[in-house]
């Protein structure tokens, strides 16, 4: 199966690979996995005092599409509020990367990872809902 140019670009030059301090109270960590392919994805976000995501990092062990999906999502969330980031849907990733149907689950994984990171951060800050930065 051929990967799209965008997938190859993110795969060869992944953006924002790395790790942040999971104990930092401004950092939310999402860990998800896909048993079907054994992929493991860690996605972290860091918010500023206004609740806006100022940085995002990921590490993914998986196929090219999984790496590209998580790389793309770290770019997408920067500058967004938690609510805005939580609204990201996997189909946006599918369209941007032109993922074929058999790779859609990779984009789902990325969506789940960002949701898990947001949930972790909200729990850590004792918030039921994030304050929206209007």
């Amino acid at each position, binding site marked *: 199966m051929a990967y799209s140019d965008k997938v190859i670009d993110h795969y060869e030059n992944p953006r924002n690979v790395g790790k942040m301090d999971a104990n930092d109270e401004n950092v939310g960590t999402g*860990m*998800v*996995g896909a*048993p079907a392919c*054994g992929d*493991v994805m*860690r996605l972290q976000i860091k918010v500023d005092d206004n609740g806006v995501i100022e940085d995002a990092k990921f590490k993914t062990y998986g196929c090219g599409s999984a790496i590209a999906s998580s790389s793309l999502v770290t770019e997408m969330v920067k500058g967004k509020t938690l609510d805005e980031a939580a609204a990201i849907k996997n189909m946006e990733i599918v369209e941007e990367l032109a993922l074929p149907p058999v790779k859609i689950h990779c984009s789902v994984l990325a969506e789940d990872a960002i949701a898990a990171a947001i949930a972790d951060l909200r729990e850590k800050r004792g918030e039921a809902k994030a304050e929206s930065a209007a």
Partner: protein
Amino acid sequence: MNTATPDLRQNYFELFELPVSSAVDKKALRTRYMALQREFHPDKYAAADDQHRRMAVQIAAMVNEAHDTLADPLKCAEYCLRLQGVEIDAETDSSMDTAFLMEQMEWREKLEDITDAGSEARAQLSDLRAQIANSVESIGGETAGKLEQKDTAGARELIRKWQFLVKIDREAQAVGSQLDD
């Protein structure tokens, strides 16, 4: 067709005349596999009419599929769970025990380092592979227990973890053959 024609709707255990269990008797599986292969080999039906020939091909395919499933411990456990009415949703459900995923992440990081570690690589790799093998063995045993108790939720969780272990084991094997080159 003769009376020995297996029913295509029967489950794999019935086809192989084995008790439903993830602990398959390998020897009995092998013996019955060879008997079924002989019995339904398409060559034997070369002179038969279309309907019987098609039937033999279908049965031969089912026999192979059944054998591959029952001979592979993970596939077999997954199949046992399906017989209890539960799917593992490997593609659609990404929620996993965080501690388990962190360990998987750690192992993959280790494996990544081994690739360019040089002289100590072999020892590190065999350590990691022993660790994986231990986990596979204990998870296999635990899964058999849960399936026995019809604890489908417990078995499902374990089988989902097992899939990650099989995957990293395959990758560790690949790293091993790279070191051998």
